[in-house]
């Protein structure tokens, strides 16, 4: 079943077309990867889907709602949550206080929101650090907190924007494990990364962006052999 359907999405900044006529659909329960070189339009695409930018044309349908041009808070309420490439934690609050903000998306009752918060923190492995002020968390933990906040809003589709950038090998593996656990909870995931190895190991399907266009969409093993993808990443000289 399709959970997200993007049709002919276009976003321009002045003369620059950052997202160029992209169509895409995401099936319930899958992990879909979005890759592409720097400046390919991945984050702009994310921002258009989640209400941070108003697309110039095209439409976004999510779980039978037309969410094109809605404000981010409305999009979150229908069940599409996201994280930010540059972590957007609430610095003056503790870990649990950050997460409870997300939990209040589904309940006004503080006691229930708090219980849900603790459940999420146990799930993401931040429970031990629940009373830390988040400025004192490591980058890896802050990225984990970003995911925890988004999970607390109980999304059916979670979009992660470079949740693994800046992590070392061990931390990256832990993040991959977490993403798989999230998928096992029944949450569909769309993941932006530009580290190929990561995305290839967890995605069921990979979409490749270059210069704002979708240039390929396939299973990971086929994507790595796709000449258009190799050219986008390595340049024409390495064309096999």
């Amino acid at each position: 079943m399709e959970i997200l359907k993007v049709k002919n999405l276009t976003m321009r900044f002045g003369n620059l077309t950052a997202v160029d006529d992209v169509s895409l659909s995401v099936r319930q329960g899958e992990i879909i990867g979005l890759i592409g070189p720097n400046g390919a339009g991945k984050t702009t695409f994310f921002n258009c889907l989640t209400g941070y930018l108003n697309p110039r044309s095209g439409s976004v349908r999510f779980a039978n709602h037309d969410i094109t041009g809605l404000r981010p808070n409305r999009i979150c309420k229908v069940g599409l949550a996201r994280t930010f490439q540059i972590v957007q934690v609430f610095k003056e609050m503790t870990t649990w206080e950050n997460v409870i903000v997300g939990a209040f998306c589904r309940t006004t009752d503080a006691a229930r929101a708090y219980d849900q918060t603790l459940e999420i923190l146990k799930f993401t492995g931040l429970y031990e650090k629940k009373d830390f002020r988040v400025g004192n968390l490591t980058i890896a933990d802050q990225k984990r907190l970003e995911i925890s906040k988004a999970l607390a809003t109980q999304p059916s589709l979670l979009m992660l924007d470079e949740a693994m950038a800046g992590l070392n090998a061990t931390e990256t593996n832990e993040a991959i494990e977490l993403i798989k656990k999230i998928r096992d909870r029944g949450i569909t995931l769309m993941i932006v990364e530009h580290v190929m190895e990561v995305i290839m190991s967890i995605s069921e399907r990979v979409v490749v962006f270059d210069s704002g266009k979708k240039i390929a969409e396939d299973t990971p093993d086929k994507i790595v052999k796709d000449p258009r993808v190799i050219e986008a990443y390595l340049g024409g000289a390495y064309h096999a």
Partner: protein
Amino acid sequence: METRALSLFKKPSAVIPLLVLFLLPFTTDNIHFHHVLIMFMLFATLSQAWNVIGGYAGQVSFGHATFFGIGAYAALVLLKKFGLTPWAGMLIGGGVAVILAILIGYPVFRLKGHYFAISTFAVAEIVERLFMNWDFVEGAIGLPAPVLPENLFHFMWYKDKMPYFYIAFVFFVLVLLLAYKIERSRLGFYFRAIKQSPDAAEGLGIDTTKFKMVAMIISAFLTALCGSFYAQYILYIDPPSVLSLDISIKIVLVTVLGGAGTIIGPILGSAILIPLSEYSRILLGGTGKGVDLIVFGALILVISVFQPLGVAGFFRKPGKGSHGNPQG
């Protein structure tokens, strides 16, 4: 997580100081001391009200004198011209303040950054000029209260300050409980999230425009109630005494000195500034006008260098969050 406001009364650290405060006026017949206590509670409450929008939600207002003045004028004008009890005037003043808050908030909360601060300041200046030239409320001459029998209905007493003390105390405690309740509820978390990262707040399902407005409405309403109390306490108001920038700034300073975005901050700030302001006036008389603000400015400088979180910051445990553990 303990969220009920009344749980504050289970804490000895909250109940004992409140009890002491309540008993303080009985230790002396010194009327001026009673006056200082009343002013302390009034400004702590004003600061608590400002804190909702300025401290928690991070939208700094330099125009709260407008709401204060509207409350003050509503009580006295309606009493004088229509014989309406100031208690009703208080609610009407609160209502007018809320309407004005919405009118200011609606356009500016869509903008980012400092526009809110500037617009509150501008509106406050306009409102003060309007009242200066509005004959119905006696313009710049000011409005004395009519002479009526002392009682609760007329909300006026001439010699005895104790009735005012009781009313101020009830206000002070109720607003304290409200602030405590807000801090621990969804509203409090939403306000703080909006202050720290509006984008992230939106992404977690918070309608930032709406909740900034909610903060503004609560703040304006409570500020207007304080204004009504002040008018009935002083029994004479004019635009400079209730609508001027001085009042707005004083409310901001009390909060920032004490610790913006904390429950205890407004109380600490008021406990420091109000006695300073009242006693320096006695000590220096008319020539000393503004000395309290000079000293206060110096205090703010020192505090912002050594403890940017305000006096309340000294009470905060290092490494922990600002609001303790949820069981508390």
